[in-house]
Structure formats: structure tokens, C-alpha cells
């Protein structure tokens, strides 16, 4: 059993003159949850489609589960960004049909589909046509279709898109459950909170190129820490304190000053400076940067809006 689930090596994909993915390389270890981040048009969906064998790369190689994609198609689960099921099929039959295409026997697939629908609270709707389900229910059916055949590797393209907060929480729990079963999960998103809560590792794409790969802590380490202070007097004097990169006064109606610290600084010098000036503080905290800040910082320089292209990349 190979330990590397996916390995992309110098993969490039072009659509005419437009390069959707540029010299992309990464590897994904078994049992991990990888967050695939990037703004619209960054090349996320194109990369996922190449990993599924839907699109061939123009350059580079892709190995999934140690083999070419055609040999392991049945061991991969896929949830596309835009949900698609046959509207006139019944929920259990829709799930079972995709499971049979992934190699399951029809009777087993149908039994498993009904069992999963029961588990997801959709037992009463298993004989309802997809067109008769609510959007949330149809999305759950689609999620179940992606994993009904018990895949080793699950690719989820924007899985939280269009879900209400309750369904988002349920899906998060489901993804954690899949990971607990030892499945390897790759999901794309541009909602940073989900990535922060779920991912072991992150890859950030911008304009088709990888701009970051690492853990959440490594991502946060890319930006300096930030201190937030409140006092009844002006704190502008803190700008001259060693270790301070930048200071911003409170926004109108807000009490907190924001101080960006230089790399490696922990903010103790700020407290010392306030003590020396006998300035009492009503609030003080130092926190690492959010993934949102890191993301904006990483892609901000590259991102100028989604390019006009034929693929929803």
C-alpha cells in the first residue's frame, strides 16, 4: 500500500493561449486532509479535473494511488463544484448508479445507498426523485454519491458552497469522520474558516501557480503577529517602540489600536512601554494572523480578478 496518495510533478495545463495551471508539483500523504485554496480562476478546479483524469495535463505527470488515473478511477470519490444528478432519478437509485459505475454490484450499491441515506436523516426521502428534494437534501445526496463506494481518496470541489450554516457543520463533521476512517481528503475552498478547522496541510494557488504549501502554523508564520490594545489616552507613542512594524489608531467608534509586530516579536515591549509611560490599558492581546490575512497577503499581489476563460478553473 503506497503512502503517497497523489503526486503531481511539474503539471501544466493550457486552454489556448491561457495557462490555467503552471508547473504545479505537490504530493499528498495517506490519511491527511489537504485544503486547496485560491481565488476564482486560480486553477483549483482544473487541477482537480486533471487528478480525476477528466482533463489531460499538457505537461508533467500525475500519479494517483501510485498508478495512472485510469487504473484507480474506482478508488476515488468526487464531489463537483456545481452539483449534478439526474433530476428524474430517485435518491437511492441516483447514489447506487454512480456506485455501480465505480465498481459496486447493483444490489450492494442500493443497500449501501439506503443505509447512508438513513444515516443522513434522509431515510424518508430515498424514493423521492432528485427534482423533488430541497437544495440542501440534493447536496447531501450528491455528497453521499461521492463516497458511497468507500473510496480511498476523496476530492471535494467547494463542498460547502451553497450550504446553510447547519448543513455546513454537518458536512464538516462528515469530512472529519471520513478522515477518521483513514481516507485521504482533498478539498478546494475559498472559505478560510473551513480550511482552518479541517486541514492538516494547505496549498494556495494564484493564477495557476502554487504560492504556498505547508501546515496551518507554517501559513500563519508567514505574517507577523498582531497586537490589539485599548486605553483612555492616545497610544501613538507605541510607533517608536522597537519591534513595532506599523500602528493603526482605532476605527471611528471602535476602542482598539492595532499594532503589527515585526517578525519574531512577541509584544512584551509594548506592555513595558505603556508601564514606563504610566498609561493604563483596558485591553491587550497578541494573536497570530488569521488564515484569511495570510490568504489575502499571498494572493493579493497576483489576484486581479478571474481571467476570461472557458473553464471554470
Amino acid at each position, binding site marked *: 500500500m503506497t503512502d503517497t496518495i497523489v503526486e503531481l510533478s511539474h503539471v501544466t495545463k493550457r486552454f489556448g493561449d491561457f495557462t490555467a495551471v503552471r508547473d504545479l508539483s505537490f504530493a499528498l500523504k495517506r490519511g491527511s486532509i489537504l485544503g486547496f485554496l485560491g481565488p476564482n480562476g486560480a486553477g483549483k478546479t482544473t487541477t482537480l*479535473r486533471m487528478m*480525476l*483524469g*477528466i*482533463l*489531460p495535463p499538457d505537461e508533467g505527470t500525475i500519479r494517483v494511488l501510485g498508478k495512472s488515473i*485510469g487504473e484507480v*478511477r474506482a478508488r*476515488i470519490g*468526487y464531489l*463537483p*463544484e*456545481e*452539483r*449534478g*444528478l*439526474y*433530476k*428524474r432519478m430517485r435518491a437511492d437509485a441516483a447514489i447506487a*448508479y*454512480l456506485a*455501480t*459505475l*465505480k465498481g459496486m454490484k447493483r444490489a450492494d450499491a442500493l443497500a449501501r445507498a439506503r443505509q447512508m441515506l438513513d444515516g443522513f436523516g434522509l431515510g424518508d426521502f430515498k424514493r423521492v426523485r432528485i427534482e423533488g428534494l430541497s437544495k440542501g437534501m440534493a447536496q447531501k445526496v450528491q455528497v453521499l*454519491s461521492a463516497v458511497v463506494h468507500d473510496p480511498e481518496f476523496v476530492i471535494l470541489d467547494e463542498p460547502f458552497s451553497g450550504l446553510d450554516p447547519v448543513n455546513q457543520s454537518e458536512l464538516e463533521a462528515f469530512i472529519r469522520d471520513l478522515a477518521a476512517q483513514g481516507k485521504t481528503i482533498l478539498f478546494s475552498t475559498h472559505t478560510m474558516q473551513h480550511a482552518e478547522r479541517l486541514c492538516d496541510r494547505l496549498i494556495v494557488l494564484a493564477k495557476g501557480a502554487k504560492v504556498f504549501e505547508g501546515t496551518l502554523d507554517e501559513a500563519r508564520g508567514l505574517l507577523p503577529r498582531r497586537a490589539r490594545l485599548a486605553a483612555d489616552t492616545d497610544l501613538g507613542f507605541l510607533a517608536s517602540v522597537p519591534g513595532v512594524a506599523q500602528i493603526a489608531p482605532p476605527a471611528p467608534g471602535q476602542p482598539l489600536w492595532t499594532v503589527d509586530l515585526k517578525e519574531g516579536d512577541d509584544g512584551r515591549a509594548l506592555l513595558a512601554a505603556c508601564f514606563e509611560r504610566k498609561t493604563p490599558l483596558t485591553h491587550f492581546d497578541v494573536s497570530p494572523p488569521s488564515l484569511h490575512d495570510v490568504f489575502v497577503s499571498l494572493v493579493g499581489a497576483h489576484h486581479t480578478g478571474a481571467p476570461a476563460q*472557458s*473553464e*471554470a478553473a
Partner: protein
Amino acid sequence: MNRAFLIARQEFIKYVTRRGFFISILMFPLWIVVVTLIPQWTAGSDSPRIFTIVDNTGGTWREAILTAIARDNESRDLAALAHYAGGFADVSKLPPATASMLAHPDTQASRRLFEKAGGLDAVRAQLQPHLKPGAPPFTVPMPRYVYAAPPPDLARSPDAKTIAAALARESGPFEIDAVVVVPSGFGPSAPQADFWSTTPRGNLRGFVDDALSNALRLAAVRAIAPNVSDRELLTDGADLESRNPAHTDGSSGAFDQGVPIALAIILFVVSVMNSSVLLQGVVEEKSTRMIEVLLSCATPREITTGKLVGVIAVALTTLLIWGLALLAMMALASHETAALVFSSLRAAATLQTVPLLLVFFLCGLLIYGSLFLAIGSMANSLADAQSLLGPSMLILMLPNLMIAGVMANPNGPLATGLSWVPIYTPFFMMLRISSHPPVWQLWGTTILALVTTALMIIWTGRVFANNVLTTERPPALGVLVGRLFRRRGA
């Protein structure tokens, strides 16, 4: 291949459970019934043509026309009686001559025998003891043409005004359809008469023309052979019976041309009907992104193969149902009609031709299906598909416009030439197959149809793989043709 089969199965279930499938299945036989039966029903319920004759010669020619009407009525009586006997009498118990007369009522010999036997009442009397229990009473057919005496004004002065008044139904109790005016000098040397009518219904003019022409010939013959009776001269004629060696039962094969035409039209109807559904299905899968899910499970070739096999299964199911509908219709049709249809089917579908018919049918279906599938994969919406489908349909419909020309001489240069146009080969060879085209043409066109089908499937696979995920405008024609010859690693 297992995935292709699963996709085919799903496509089959998807299409045959749609309401549209049942509607289309019912529509075609209903259309056939309407097209064939309505003219018969309207013919049966048509009112007689009432006309009048102003014979200014004294009445000789009016009598000739009235004699022709009497003979026409006699023929119709015999035909109706034969039809009645076929359905409700035990004909085997009739005297052989009478049975033969009723079996072939259209021949001159039968008509002579009918007259000799005493006409309608006499033959009905012969038939009466042999009627089956519960037989309905015989209905004497309505005459096609009825003579009415001319209104006095018209008889006195047959000019444009009185004729117009008669035709406008202002001058008498009858609805007069036509006025025949025979001038005083009418005869072999001056054969001009007038036929006035504002409603040229039926074939009354032709009937009157024939009656007067026969009367003129009769007058000419009587001048040189005064001993020959009028009846004899008017009834004598050749009985040219149609025969076809392919019909071992000796039947004429009246529907022999109809069977291949029906097969070719069914190929077209079934292909276009099912391929349109295939096209709509692909456009729908593209718009709902279901196609992306399918592509994550199977290769483009497995998907296209599955879809085409699914369409074949739907088409064969359609044919099976229509075949059963035909059997049901034959059970309702007269014994003679059913015998003629089955005889022609047997002649067209022999052990030698059935495999070829099947090959051409499947090739035609796959060629049309591939084309529609390719169009569907290039279109982003049904509106897009329509813009591509329009020109394609014009090309595909062309063979239907050539049926008459091809069937006029099924082995002539036009038919042979069209048979070698690759996308038309299946259609025209189905039309020609019962006309015994040369063996080299059969082999050649079979190979051509198979190669064309294979190339179309390969091309469709490439077009599908290249376009099914894009939201771009459909590619230019040159690009599409290029894909037929360029390999692509999708």
C-alpha cells in the same frame, strides 16, 4: 466495457420511462392509421356526384353515359359483395365459379360472370345459405355518380346563364355538381362536348369522358361489325395480373415497394426521434454538470459508447412495439390486406436480406446518433444545439426527398450514386435491397456503411472529449473535420 453497459442501461431506462417516449411510440402508428384510413373513411362516406345531361342530339349519348353508370354500379356491387363474402360467408361451400368470382372481383371475367349470374340479387341469394352465424346484413354500396334530369330552363336553353343557375342550385331540388352539354352535331366526326362544373369533385369528368369515348368507339365498331353486341364490346378487355417470383404464394406483391420505403422511413423516424432525445440528454448533462460526475467515473469513449448502445436499445424497443402494433392492425384489417402485407414482408425480408437490413439499420442509427451526440457535446444550451441541428437536419432529410426518384429505378444511376454517399448509404440500401442490387454493390456498400459508422463513432468520441466540459462557442467546421484525423489523449 462494463461501465459502458451500465451507462447504456441507465440511458435506456431514462428514455423509456419518459412520457415523451410513450407519446412518440403511440404517435407513429396513429399517424399511419390516420394516413391510411382517413381517405378510405372519407371515400366511403362521400356523397354521390349528381350531374345532368343536356343531349341536343336526341338522347343517344345520354343513354351511353347512363349505361356506363349502370356498369360502374355493377362493379361496385361485386367488389362490395366480395368483401362481404370474405368476412362473413363460408366461401368454400359456394360453387367454384362463384367462389373464384368473389376471390377476384376486379377482373373482366368476374364482372362478366356476375352479370351472367343475374347481378347483385342473384349472387346474394347464392351467398345467403352460407353466411356465418351473426353475419350483419349486406349494405349495397352507394353509387358514385347519379344522373338527374335537367331543370326545364336548362333543357330548353343550355346557355351560360341557365347552366350557372343549375350549378348554383337555384333551379331544382338537387345539388347538381356538373352539367354535360352534348351539342346537336356530336359524333365521331365532331366529338366536342362541354363539361360544366364549379366543384370538380371526384373523377366525374374523367368518367364522362371515358363513357363518351367508349360510345364513340362503339359507334365506329358497330359501323363495320353490326352483329357484335354493345355489352360484349364494352366488357372485353385484357386481365393483366401482376406476378412476382419472390411471392411463392402467387400473390402480386402490391406492397413490395411499400415495405422498403416503410423500412427506410422508419429508420429515419426512429433515428431522428431517439437521437434528438440523446442530444437533449447531453445538453442537459452539460448544463447540470452531471457530465463531470460521469467523466470522473468513466472515460469519454465509455460514455459515448454507452449512450449510443442505449439509443440502439431504445430504437429496437420502439421497433418491437411498432411491429406488435402492425400485427394488431393486421388482425383488424381485412384478410386480403393482411395477406398482401405479409407476403410483401416475406419477399423483402428473406434469409439473405434480413442480416443486411439489420446491419444497415444499425449503421444508420449509429451514424445519426453519433452526429447528434457530437452536436449535443458542442452545444451549451438547446438554443445552441438548434443552430447546429438546422443545417444537419437539412442534410439528413435529403434522402426522404429522393425516395420517389430512387424507387422509380432502384438499380439505376441515381439510386446507385446516392448509395455510395457515406452518410446516406444505409438509407438508400434499405430502399434498394429488395430490388436485388448487384452483389458487388451489396458488399461494397455494407463495408462502406460499417467503415463510416466506425469513423463517426471515433470522431464523436474525440469531439465529445474535447467539448463536453467547455462553455466556449462550438468549434468551427474545419476544426471538427480536423478532429476526425487527429489523435488526442483524453
